[in-house]
């Protein structure tokens, strides 16, 4: 090129000297919101994160993120009641993401590939005693070990696992899975001493010169009610029944069994009895809506031919029948007796109306505050009224689920760690929750939820084989990719693409984006077109 015409001809890209950012009255900023699933998870799992990696096929990375919060994914993938899915924003679109099934996939993947936990980088020399090897105890032990503390668990049962072993039937949680995940924890150097009941916790603490103690002894005693009975009728309690079936694989019991209660335990018992050839019938005071038992579990039970007597209490147990009083619900949904009675043929009754904490030992601890039958703890620090003694799990909670126990165990461990370092533990601040309204659902492709295969009802009744199968890799990845990534960037490049001023800089895979405020005019298209609601327009300070 020789001489260019003046003014009429311009050099390329000279507009870059015109910084249009000065036009801006609103500026786009990235906001990081808390996905509703994460917020809901009692174990505080970073679900969105591990779904992100699972979706990319990096299963180990996903598993590592998952086990930051929960050391028992294979178990949780089976027994967790996954209330997270109830909160999933995808529910507004088609169906919630099958978080639980992907968690199980990752758990099983880790077992197949013998993924182990990393040993702590350093030993602190501190010692912690944990009473009970249920989910709370194992979770706490695991977390403490990661901090490098020495952990000793004392378990009164013959084998570790607590309710996961003695409360949850095999068809829901095969024991090889449980054992494998417990072994992974012991491989970290956690000691579990089984078959011993600690009678004097303070003495044990002193003698073993433990720096701290965590009470994780669960709620191991079935609640009793007093039913008028002829001495011939057999009345058993749920935990004994389940425990016996667990240890002996069978139990001597009559054919027609009434299971009294409406909780998950009642359902577990009924379904277990069905499998050893009995004909269980659930008797419950309220109706189905009011039933605390997990819905899916209940559906499964009914599929398996288990009958339910709604709005009924057992007034009296005779030799081969029960006297049932009909109930009605008042305006608050509380059951009221009607005075109407009927006969229900039954040879036995199993009480499944709740569990209690065994207070025989802890009540001896001087200055330990109790409320009803559970230990009072500081919600922030999980410490009991006694310095150095913490508590987690069913013994310190009214919301008695495995997942909750794992969450509590985690927090207790973190708090203990802080305590051992002479600090007070504070739970992390929660971000603003990602709401569906803040998102841009149009962009998400339709994708039906992947259903887990199940053993057909007919075959279930004869066996304790696991009812629910896992997802194939294909389905698991697909399911993971159904995550909407609520409130956080999923690198869809929308903002980068839709900016009319090319004022967004792409930093490369995994690195996200940056706003180029030199040129950003603040139009807000990026914010409006972000599927995740990850961008917010905030007023410029003028």
């Amino acid at each position, binding site marked *: 090129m020789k001489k260019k015409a003046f003014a009429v001809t311009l050099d390329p890209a000279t507009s870059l000297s015109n910084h249009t950012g000065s036009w801006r009255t609103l500026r786009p900023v990235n906001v990081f919101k808390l996905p509703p699933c994460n917020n809901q998870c009692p174990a505080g799992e970073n679900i969105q994160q591990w779904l992100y990696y699972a979706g990319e096929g990096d299963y180990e990375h996903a598993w590592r993120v998952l086990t930051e919060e929960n050391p028992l994914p294979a178990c949780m993938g089976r027994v967790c009641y996954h209330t997270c899915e109830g909160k999933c924003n995808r529910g507004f679109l088609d169906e919630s993401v099958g978080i639980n099934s992907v968690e199980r996939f990752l758990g099983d993947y880790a077992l197949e590939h013998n993924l182990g936990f990393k040993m702590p980088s350093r030993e602190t020399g501190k010692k912690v005693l944990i009473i009970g090897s249920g989910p709370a105890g194992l979770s706490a032990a695991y977390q403490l070990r990661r901090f490098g503390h020495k952990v000793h668990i004392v378990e009164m049962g013959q084998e570790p696992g607590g309710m996961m072993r003695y409360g949850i039937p095999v068809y829901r949680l095969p024991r090889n899975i449980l054992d494998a995940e417990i072994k992974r924890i012991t491989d970290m150097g956690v000691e579990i001493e089984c078959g011993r009941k600690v009678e004097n916790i303070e003495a044990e603490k002193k003698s073993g010169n433990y720096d701290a103690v965590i009470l994780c002894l669960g709620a191991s005693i079935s609640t009793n009610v007093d039913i008028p009975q002829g001495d011939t009728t057999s009345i058993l309690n749920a935990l004994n029944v389940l425990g016996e079936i667990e240890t002996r694989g069978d139990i001597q019991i009559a054919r027609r069994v009434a299971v009294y209660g409406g909780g998950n335990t009642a359902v577990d018992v009924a379904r277990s009895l069905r499998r050893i050839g009995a004909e269980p019938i659930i008797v419950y005071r309220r109706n189905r809506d009011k039933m605390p038992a997990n819905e899916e579990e209940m559906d499964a039970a009914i599929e398996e031919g288990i009958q339910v007597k709604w709005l009924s209490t057992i007034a009296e147990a005779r030799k081969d029948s029960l006297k049932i009083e009909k109930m009605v619900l008042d305006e608050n949904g509380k059951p009221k007796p009607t005075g109407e009675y009927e006969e229900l043929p039954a040879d036995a009754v199993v009480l499944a109306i709740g569990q209690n904490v065994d207070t025989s030992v802890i009540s001896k601890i001087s200055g330990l505050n109790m409320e009803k039958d559970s230990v009072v703890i500081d919600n922030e620090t999980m410490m009991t009224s006694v310095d150095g003694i913490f508590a987690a799990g069913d013994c310190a909670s009214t919301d008695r689920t495995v997942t909750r126990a794992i969450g509590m165990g985690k927090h207790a461990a973190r708090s203990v760690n802080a305590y051992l370092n002479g600090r007070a533990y504070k739970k992390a601040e929660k971000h603003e929750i990602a709401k569906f309204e803040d998102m841009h659902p149009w*962009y998400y492709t339709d994708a039906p939820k992947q259903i887990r295969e199940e053993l057909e009802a007919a075959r279930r009744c004869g066996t304790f084989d696991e009812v629910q199968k896992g997802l194939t890799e294909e389905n698991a990845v697909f399911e993971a990719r159904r995550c909407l990534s609520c409130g956080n960037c999923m690198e869809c490049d929308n903002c980068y693409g*839709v900016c009319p001023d090319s004022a967004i800089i792409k930093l490369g895979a995994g690195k996200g984006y940056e706003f*180029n405020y030199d040129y950003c005019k603040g139009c807000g298209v990026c914010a409006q077109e972000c599927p995740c609601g990850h961008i917010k327009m905030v007023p410029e300070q003028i």
Partner: protein
Amino acid sequence: MLEKIKFYQTGSNTVGNRMLNPAMRTIQASEDRPNSLISGHRACQGCGEALGARYAIDAAMKATNGQIMLVNATGCLEVFSTPYPESAWQIPWIHSLFGNAASVGSGLAAAARILAKKHGQENAPRIIAQGGDGGTTDIGFGPLSGMFERNDDVLYICYDNEAYMNTGVQRSSATPPAARTATTQLVGDAPGADWGKGKDVPLIAMAHGIPYVATATVADLRDLENKVTKAMSFHGARYIQILVPCPLGWGLNSSSTVTAARLAMETGFFPVYEAEYGKVTSVRKIRQKQPVLNYLKLQRRYAHLTGKKADPNVVARLQAMCDQNIKNFGLLDDDNTEAAPVAIQAFERNQSV
């Protein structure tokens, strides 16, 4: 294995999506996209035309690996991209007049072909002529038709924002009925633009029997890029009309540019399709059908149709117009790629009898 699992969160509705392999992503998703129209231009906030132009030209640059020269009709795009002393273009570009982009394109194409021949180069640079709806459907229509008729090797892109925005939002032959412009004000007993006026240039282009004609919007980038890429695979005259919402002229929030374009598609207000040698070959189906009112609500140019004093009959007529488009082009059912569409104005005129 992972490739086999087709579903990705946003699938192919977004610009990129980290889980798609790069080949499946749009050009706009790549860190080294051409940015033919670069930052620092003086378009309004949220300008749909600036967006559409970068989308389209970048796609053409990719398709020809950088062998593109541009002719620009007078209009917003020309004014905001090249005010002395700054040009926002990174590629060869020329502006001559309002009404002659197509002809200048023909001349440039001829020159490029001759020079390439002289210098023994195998492929000459490809030419794109572009303009707004005013420069295309009105004042530049003669030259456009001539370029079509001669089948000159030019891709003409019309950035359709449905009025003369550069001069202050006056009515063009692409302005839809009942819309407010400075020359079709919201006054009198029939506020806004008249019914049964205007022309359907994509269909007129098809009637020339040229190799390729398509419509697109800035709301479906992948569709737009595919069409530009396809257009560049043909030689001869080609035409693409891209709907580019104008926040100023339409009375949109600057953030709603893409949303408005999407609603124009999803309501059937702006049918998106492509045609080869005068025959419709494919139609972009509506993903989530929406009532036209949702589209009107976004735009103050239709304020008279969404307020309290709104005339439901007019909205109903616009809805009927959308439904007619859906019918003509088969925007919902799957069997209608053989559609032989009619200009919507015919329907309107018929209606207004």
